[in-house]
């Protein structure tokens, strides 16, 4: 119990620190690297919650592929530290921070007020081999959604190629 709580609070502390850093550091590349750390922290949170496969996919997809793309693009851009990282406007800025804080507060309050949920211990475990069951569920009940997702990815791939080959691009043939 105690160990679990300590582990959780350490993880939560790291996650909050890193995600704060993502939005606060001026150099976008540093943001991206902090985001990688956040992703890895989330993967370990998934692992704690018994979702090993999702944790692995999180590392492979987010940390290993998506964020590498971000970092690569940022390197290509050669952006020096920005003079102004944040958008203008004192009032709107305050409003933005306030609304974000309100959402976080409401989430916290919602979690806190539903006492039964908060008090429930670590939750009912999913019986058996999670990965295997995940596969079975994905290819039976959610088969059609899965196929549609495949078509979405295909469309996105074509769209991205089209956008990045527009005239003047690094791959333009002329």
């Amino acid at each position, binding site marked *: *119990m*105690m160990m*679990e*709580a300590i582990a959780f609070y350490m993880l*939560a502390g790291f*996650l*909050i620190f890193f*995600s704060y850093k*993502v*939005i606060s550091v001026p150099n976008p590349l540093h943001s*991206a690297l902090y*985001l990688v750390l*956040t992703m890895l922290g989330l993967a370990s*949170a*998934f692992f704690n*919650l*018994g*979702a090993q496969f*999702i944790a692995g*996919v999180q590392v492979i997809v*987010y940390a290993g*592929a*998506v964020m590498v793309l*971000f970092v690569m*693009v940022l390197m290509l*851009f050669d*952006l020096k530290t920005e003079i102004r*990282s*944040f*958008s203008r406007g004192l009032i709107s*800025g305050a409003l*933005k921070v306030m609304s*974000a*804080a309100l*959402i*976080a507060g409401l*989430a916290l309050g919602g*979690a806190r007020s*539903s006492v039964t*949920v*908060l008090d*429930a*211990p*670590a*939750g*009912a475990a*999913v019986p058996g081999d*999670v990965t295997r069951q*995940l596969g079975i*569920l994905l290819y039976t009940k*959610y088969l059609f959604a899965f196929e549609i997702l495949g078509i*979405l990815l295909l469309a*996105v*791939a074509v*769209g*991205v190629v089209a*956008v*990045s080959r527009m005239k*003047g691009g*690094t791959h333009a043939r002329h």
Partner: protein
Amino acid sequence: MLDTEALMRIGLGHYIALSGIIFSFGMIAVMMRKNVIVMLMGVELMLNAVNLSFVAFAKEAGNLNGHIMVFFVMTIAAAEAGVGLALAVAIYKKFHEVNIRFFEQLKG
């Protein structure tokens, strides 16, 4: 008066709270940063926060529907990142900067 007992028993609520905090950070990035790529990172952060709550709910409910949702969200997030970066590259090629204000005029 802190309820130490409730704080020490890690349950769904703790994860939801954590997810809410990360989500709000992502929101701030989207609303306040000027660099489009950092805004995209904010979007990723929000999606990840939601994923965390999905997994926590799945654990609570004792079934795997939440995991499936996370799986789908991840796929779509990867696609979204691809599209977003392609647009950012296109903008960069034109203006040599990726400030969000270049996205505000919807013409070539």
